């Protein structure tokens, strides 16, 4: 009886001091991030379908599909894909309370994201020099809007990663509050997930 009471008290205390105890058993922040990502599917769905509708409307000018450099974009895609691995390794390190390694992986993830953004900047510049401006034709507008929105998401992700790195360096982020890393990680993986779809649907499927 005494043991059972002690066990009940422990459980009660755990819940009382657990800042994430909720009715669903999932922290509100994590649930909110998943719901946010769910709505992001609608945003990117709209941008992808808009591009698909307008991709052949070039008004006689050059089209984005004429300028795609698939080997170059493949390398960028690979870099972003590998950043998902480094992100999850960062989370794993924080979970083990291995803060130094966690910080290092966060930095590598942010750097890989920056390399991807550098690739996108190079691609946009090359397209512009070939005569494909934002308002050249509907296909160009749809292409730049879609990939630009994705790039903005990657940039926000890099800022969040660097904020985590700074917080970890200042000792504000430890293994105990690694859920913050997990939530930023969810966002980062989602950005990667969206690129998986963009890369196939926009770049790899050849025009008829």
């Amino acid at each position, binding site marked *: 009886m005494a*043991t*059972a009471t*002690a*066990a009940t008290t422990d*459980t009660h205390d755990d819940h009382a001091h657990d800042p994430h105890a909720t009715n*669903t*058993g*999932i922290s509100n922040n*994590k*649930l909110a991030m*998943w*719901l946010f*990502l*769910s*709505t*992001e*599917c*609608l945003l*990117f*769905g*709209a941008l*992808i*379908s808009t591009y*698909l*509708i307008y991709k052949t409307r070039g008004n006689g000018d050059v089209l984005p599909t004429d300028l795609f450099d*698939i*080997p170059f974009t*493949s390398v960028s*895609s*690979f870099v972003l*894909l*590998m950043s*998902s*691995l480094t*992100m*999850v*390794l960062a989370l*794993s390190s924080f*979970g083990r309370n291995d803060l130094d390694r966690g910080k290092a992986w966060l930095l590598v993830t942010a750097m890989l994201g920056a390399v991807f953004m550098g690739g996108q900047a190079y691609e946009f510049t090359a397209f512009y020099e070939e005569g494909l401006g934002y308002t050249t034709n509907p296909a160009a507008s749809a292409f730049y809007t879609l990939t630009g929105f994705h790039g903005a998401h990657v940039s926000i992700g890099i800022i969040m990663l660097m904020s985590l790195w700074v917080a970890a360096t200042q000792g504000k982020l430890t293994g105990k509050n690694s859920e913050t890393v*997990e939530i930023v*990680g*969810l966002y980062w*993986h*989602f950005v*990667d*997930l969206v690129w*998986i*779809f963009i*890369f*196939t*649907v926009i770049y*790899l*499927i*050849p025009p*008829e």
Partner: protein
Amino acid sequence: MSETTEAVVETHDEAHDDHHPSDWEYIKVAIILALVTAAEVATYFESVFTFFETRWILLTSLFTMMIFKGWLVARVFMHLKQDKPVLQQSFFAGVLLATAVYIVTLFAFNFFG
């Protein structure tokens, strides 16, 4: 330590393990993702492209690889495999809604001919 406490600790440990696949497991998934990406990119090159006799075989292959990659990232890297089903349901509700809405939109704009 009483049996009850041991059982609680054991359950907690199992749950902890479930939430943390090993680093090696993540690396294996990343290798699979890299290989599938390489296979996707290979379809771009002429010699491989001609292997796909009709366009629909190429499209089916590309879409299958894309969905497989997305599924792996969501299930392993985003931990949907271990997390509570409500998270999976919330996310896939958005994915399915977006897919349905925009397929209808594409039909409305005669995208599929």
